[in-house]
């Protein structure tokens, strides 16, 4: 499923954050958005998913207009959003977490059970721990569970907000392996993160967001040669 954002304007109250952002994310690709803090990266994902209403601009899924759709509608259409903050139910087991997420949008037992099977095939670590409370998982496994929940819903587009937050570099690397698997499964991944070097490993397309505007877009290799120069400008004043 192709995600397209055209000239998106959004913010909080009278504080403008996104000032006309356009980008697209393709299936079987990881599209990463980097930028200094406060550039609007999280706001971008929240606006796409409908947590925030855009002031203007458009969001399209396979060419179909979904601008201003509520989060539950976006979920039904196959778009999932994984926030920066932990979003699992700590006292429920891994399997309960997976089932509960699926149940919210789809009361089809067969589809849920198929989804579960798919998740367990992709993430053996979650299968091994299916009866453990989520809180007892490692930080990396918890993040894995957060991502996996949306595969039960059969999501086609995954919006990932700062997947590296709170994780050690080694654990983050494991999470990136998980994201790479999603891409192989044909999903569209749009992620924002601060850790440019690590994230670049699994990235295909790069956008740089500064002060609510896209200031660079290109392939991973186009970005690679310029990244030190781009980051240097963030420190200028």
């Amino acid at each position, binding site marked *: 499923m192709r995600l397209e954002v055209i000239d998106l304007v959004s913010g909080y109250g009278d*504080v403008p954050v996104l000032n006309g952002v356009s980008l697209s994310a393709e299936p079987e690709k990881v599209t990463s958005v980097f930028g200094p803090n406060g550039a609007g990266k999280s706001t971008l994902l929240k606006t796409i998913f409908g947590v925030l209403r855009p002031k203007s601009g458009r969001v399209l899924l396979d060419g179909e207009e979904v601008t201003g759709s509520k989060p539950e509608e976006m979920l039904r259409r196959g778009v999932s959003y994984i926030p920066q903050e932990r979003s699992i139910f700590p006292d429920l087991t891994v399997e309960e977490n997976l089932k509960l997420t699926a149940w919210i949008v789809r009361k089809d037992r067969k589809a849920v059970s198929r989804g579960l099977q798919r998740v367990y095939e992709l993430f053996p670590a979650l299968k091994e721990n299916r009866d453990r409370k989520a809180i007892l998982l490692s930080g990396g496994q918890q993040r894995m569970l957060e991502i996996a929940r949306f595969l039960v819903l059969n999501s086609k587009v995954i919006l990932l907000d700062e997947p590296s937050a709170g994780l050690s570099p080694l654990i983050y690397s494991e999470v990136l392996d998980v994201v790479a698997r999603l891409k192989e499964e044909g999903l569209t991944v749009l992620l924002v993160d601060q850790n440019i070097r690590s994230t670049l490993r699994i990235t295909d397309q790069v956008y740089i967001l500064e002060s609510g505007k896209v200031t660079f877009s290109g392939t991973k290799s186009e970005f690679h040669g310029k990244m030190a120069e781009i980051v240097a400008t963030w420190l200028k004043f």
Partner: protein
Amino acid sequence: MERYGLREDTLLAASGLSKSFGRLQAVYDVSFELRRGEVLGLIGPNGAGKTTLLNLLSGFYVPDRGEFYVNGRKANGLPPYEIARLGVARTFQVPRLFYNLTVEQNVRAALLSSPRSTRKDVAKALELVGLNGHREKLAKELSGGQQKLLELAMAWVMDPRIYLLDEPFAGVHPVMRERIVGVIRSELEEEKGFVVISHEITTLMQISRRVIVMSMGRIVAEGPPEEVSSNREVIEVYLGEEV
């Protein structure tokens, strides 16, 4: 104090401060001095240990190792209210206010924790941050930017010598940001000192005399803004680590 060879105008001095949480070394061997009339900027990627450092300096955490001095008095191990009494005021990334009290009541509440002799005027505090017209409003009715201004007024009214500000400009409208900068500048003239964490690099570089760059709990660079912003190592820090 003397054995550290501190200058007379040193307001705050930290030496080898370290703090870990389980296996995570959040702050490691951090030493610096804050002098009268200066802003010390603190930058670094998320998770670098900046807020943990402020939590150590304000007594919310006790350092595992190292020590720090406030106005020449050893302050590690003291609870937050005693550190506040030494003249340290702190603000938070998400303002900690009494959300169901009015703007004015919040400022009055801040006064309760400050020694009588140093009390400043509540009305003046509100005028300074431009919240005079909102004194009867509940704190929860203010915008995010106004809440930051209120927290600053609550710090100012205590007449601290040292301000520790955590992301004072985040999510703040440019006009209000200018007001905050104005308050900082007027306090600098009074020889106050500031440690300011901010991701608003441009604003922070403009007001800081010196900037400390942290990454993975350590200080990786320190110097005047011009020097830090062109430092190769600092750029590397912002690119993140490859794993």
